[in-house]
């Protein structure tokens, strides 16, 4: 579904991503793990068009989308849950959710109910301004907002950041569920344990390069991964 070939990205003089290639097959869950600053977020930002790559190619459903502008890429069905939530603080929860469905022309009411089912807390707070939500509530909103666009490919940058343990489990459950509904998922997680358990395929990123890859369970049992990312 998504194919990245030899992608390189620089910030000013810093090489953040140094030529990576990987694929995300349709209907799968793929995860990128790696230490802080490895270039995970940069990769996702590049795919969504927020950052322009220095070289390399990004193909989505067979179409070259490298260098297209963000709204166009979004309209093709790629949605990003950005790092740091990026809620619209002056808009209410409901409006934030509606904006998620900005490009959709069909009725979104049933989807709203679906999101409220997933996150009852948001329903309670639907008239509150996004900026005043607690950290975890904002994270739920960010995920919910992305789901509202009914993406083909959903990219999530650390969706469990700052969430309570119970909710973290929920989030992973939701990820599985929407995946089963046919949405392809590209996931970044610090919680490598859970991520690898959930994912079909995992890639390990180290300072801008892919150093290991395999199925989720392969990586889970890989001693090097264990040592570096699983913490035991």
């Amino acid at each position, binding site marked *: 579904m998504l194919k990245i070939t030899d992608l390189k990205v620089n910030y000013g003089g810093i090489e953040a991503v140094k030529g990576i290639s990987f694929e995300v097959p349709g209907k799968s869950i793929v995860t990128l793990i790696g230490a802080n600053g490895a270039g995970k977020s940069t990769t996702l930002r590049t795919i969504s068009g927020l950052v322009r790559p220095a070289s390399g190619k990004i193909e989505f459903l067979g179409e070259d989308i490298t260098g297209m*502008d963000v709204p166009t890429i979004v309209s093709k069905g790629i*949605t990003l849950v*950005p790092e740091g939530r990026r809620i619209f603080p002056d808009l209410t929860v409901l409006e934030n959710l509606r*904006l998620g469905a900005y490009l959709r022309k069909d009725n979104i009411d049933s989807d709203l109910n679906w999101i409220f089912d997933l996150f009852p807390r948001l329903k309670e707070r639907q008239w509150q*301004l996004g900026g005043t939500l607690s950290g975890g509530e904002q994270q739920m909103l960010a995920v919910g907002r992305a789901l509202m666009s009914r993406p083909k490919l959903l990219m999530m940058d650390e969706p469990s950041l700052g969430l309570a343990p119970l909710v973290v489990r929920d989030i992973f459950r939701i990820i599985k569920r929407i995946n089963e509904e046919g949405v392809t998922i590209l996931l970044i997680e610090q919680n490598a344990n859970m991520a690898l358990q959930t994912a079909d395929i995992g890639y390990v990123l180290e300072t801008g390069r892919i150093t290991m890859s395999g199925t989720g369970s392969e990586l889970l049992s890989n001693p090097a991964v264990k040592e570096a990312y699983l913490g035991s």
Partner: protein
Amino acid sequence: MDFINQNLPYILAGISVGGQYALIAIGYTMVYGILRLINFAHGDLFMAAGLIMIYLTASLPLYIAIPLDLIIIAVLGFLIERVAYKPLRNAPRMSIMISAIGVSYLLQNVALYVTGGLAKTYPTIPWISNSVTIFGATTKVVTLVTPVLTLILVVALVLLINNTKIGMAMRAVSRDFETSQLMGIKINTVISVTFIIGSLLAAVGSMLYFTNYTAVTPISGSMPGLKCFVAAVFGGIGSIPGAVIGAFLIGICENIIKGLGWTTFSDAFTFALLIVILIAKPTGLFGEKSTDKV
């Protein structure tokens, strides 16, 4: 009756000036709302609308000149945004503001260059230029039309911003370009729409204003521009109803002060009032409190 006779002109003038200020102030507030930019060029756009109208009516009938004027100003507003502000999307906020000051200088200086600088007389627009007498006070029809028209436009705008998709997009873009794009919003389109609406309001405002105050000079826009900006701040910059209320407040107070004989300080008083209000309410009457959660 005598009392009314003596004081009605001040109040009428206040309401009418307030309405005209309101139309310009909305332009400021909208642009500020979306770009966090004090668009210093807005007042000069207003002046340009006046001048262009004068040149247009010199050779065209009014019913062509008026729509043409509106179109030209909308296009001008659009171009200003594209040329002077868009390249600076990622620059420090102050740089865009300087660019705005640059545009303001440019419009003024081009006007000076073209017109020579002498005051031009604004054409008479039938009906609204007529004099009417209410309670013995003589004034122009435009004085009465302005507040009504202003209110209609404001209600329409508030509805647009609060209840439509583009309105929601405008509010989203104002806070965060990047995430707005991630929602699929074409931010350039949204910003352009904002500028076009703001410019159109300035053009309409200029027709009402210059029908009342018929001399147009290259600096005709700067004082109304400043006053309207003050009005926008008064009401809480970014808030459309705030801008309108601020504009009426300033217009009326200013004229009452003049009527009381404190003419020397009518402007100073406007600023003093503004400062007092800001001290009581640091983000203006209807200003949004910062929702920056710690």
